[in-house]
């Protein structure tokens, strides 16, 4: 049944390593000093630290994937690869749709500019396929954010909670083909979180496919229909949510 749905994302044999220092020194001053101290000492070092190891993942329309794993398991790195921010050296990622990814809900883009202006910039960056609706998106998002008089104040005066309101209100205004939400509820205040949850639930329901990263089981269980567990850069389970959590807890138990 699921196999008949459109394949939105096809990841094959994806591996990614973070380079260790390209140069042993990290400043011009160190290079200057070490060159004078030992002109023939080793200046370059090669090496890398593997973060993703041979990832294979297929995401189809209708998938609501809860991505779980302990800190450092590679969840955000995988999401950044999918979004195209990191370019992997090995493996391939095939995308059949526009991706909207959110990693940091308190994005303060231009501190000197107002909430309204920043909302517009965010909308321009994220809603390229809704080009004609940008005015409407901005207007509606600002109303939803309930920032009222603060909308025209520079966002450098905002608290973290207010920034989260602004960013999430804009980002959740329209559905996406592939939506990636990486721990987006952090920082929103209690009252707004409820209102926002409803809106994000709607966003998730109307989007093509969703990858949802969270440390809260309830949130994952609430929105997902499939769970992927990551550990040490690998996918160690892909399937049903309860089973995923049983495995995840066992893993965590081992670590503790």
């Amino acid at each position, binding site marked *: 049944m699921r196999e008949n749905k459109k394949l939105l994302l096809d990841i094959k044999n994806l591996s990614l390593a*973070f*380079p260790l*220092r*390209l*140069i042993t*020194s*990290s*400043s*011009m*001053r160190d*290079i200057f000093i070490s060159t004078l101290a030992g002109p023939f000492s080793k200046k370059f070092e090669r090496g890398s630290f593997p973060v993703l190891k041979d990832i294979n993942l297929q995401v189809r329309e209708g998938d609501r994937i809860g991505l779980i794993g302990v800190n450092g398991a590679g969840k955000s790195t995988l999401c*950044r690869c999918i*979004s*195209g*921010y*990191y*370019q992997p*050296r090995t493996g391939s990622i095939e995308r059949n749709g526009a*991706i909207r*990814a*959110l*990693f*940091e809900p308190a*994005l*303060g*883009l*231009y*501190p*000197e*500019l107002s909430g309204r*202006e920043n909302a*517009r*910039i965010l909308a*321009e*960056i*994220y809603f*390229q396929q809704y080009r004609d609706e940008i005015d409407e998106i901005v207007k509606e998002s600002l109303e939803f954010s309930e920032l009222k008089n603060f909308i025209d104040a520079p966002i450098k005066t905002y608290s973290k909670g207010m920034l989260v309101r602004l960013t999430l209100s804009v980002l959740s205004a329209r559905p996406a083909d592939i939506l990636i939400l990486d721990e987006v509820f952090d920082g929103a205040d209690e009252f707004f979180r409820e209102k926002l949850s409803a809106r994000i639930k709607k966003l998730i329901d109307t989007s093509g496919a969703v990858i949802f990263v969270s440390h809260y089981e309830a949130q994952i269980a609430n929105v997902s229909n499939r769970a992927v567990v990551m550990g040490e850069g690998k996918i160690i389970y892909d399937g049903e949510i309860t089973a995923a959590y049983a495995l995840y807890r066992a893993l965590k138990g081992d670590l503790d």
Partner: protein
Amino acid sequence: MKADLRLLYVLTMANLKSRYRNTFYGFLWVILNPILIFAVQAYAFKIIFKIQYMNYTTFLLSGLLPWLFIVQSVEMCTNLFVNYANFIRNLPVGPLTLLLTQVLDNFINFLFSFLILVIAFFATEPEKFKILFFMPLPVLSLALSIGSLCLIFASVNVILRDLKFVTSFLFSLLFYLTPIFYPAQFIPEQFKILVTLNPFYHVIHPFQILTMSGYGAEFFSSLLLSYGISAIFAVIAYVVWNRMKGYLIFYA
């Protein structure tokens, strides 16, 4: 492509608005900087040191404005990838777009401060206004050089974080070594090599020639040299960027 251009426009406007604080006075504040630098130098060298050279104020301005465009762009761009790490890691906006935005922002400021030159020019020598039609030629070469330099410094600075201090120090030295407030003719023969080897001089020189002696053969040969230097900078930038782009995001 069209979407990229639109994004470039939106982000450049955002930069400019941030800098001008959305007001005309903010704009005036930004323009005041080159005017003050110019005024103080004109005072020091023309009135105190009494440099005798054709129309000295016009000469000074024709070298100083491109120089300030170089220095300010490099200063703002060198640490750009580090400052905008938040953007690069979290938004679908490429590092190159961000860099281009910053260079464009400075370019627009440069064009406005260029207006000062034009006004100074018409006030002193209204009959020479024709040379303005040739101005876009050296301006384009200058912009190409600056864009390339900014890309080189910004990329390297991601790994060598103190590069920004080194560049600002070097540029403060280079100001004295580059014939900006004195003409190259004043340099004794045995030191001429310092100018010949100074790439910034070759990029700025066409502005000085055009302003002082118009669009003769001398102007076009200096222009050719200027484009040659820009091309070299562009090639270096391309090589550095290709080497660095894969690593950039991990460090930024």
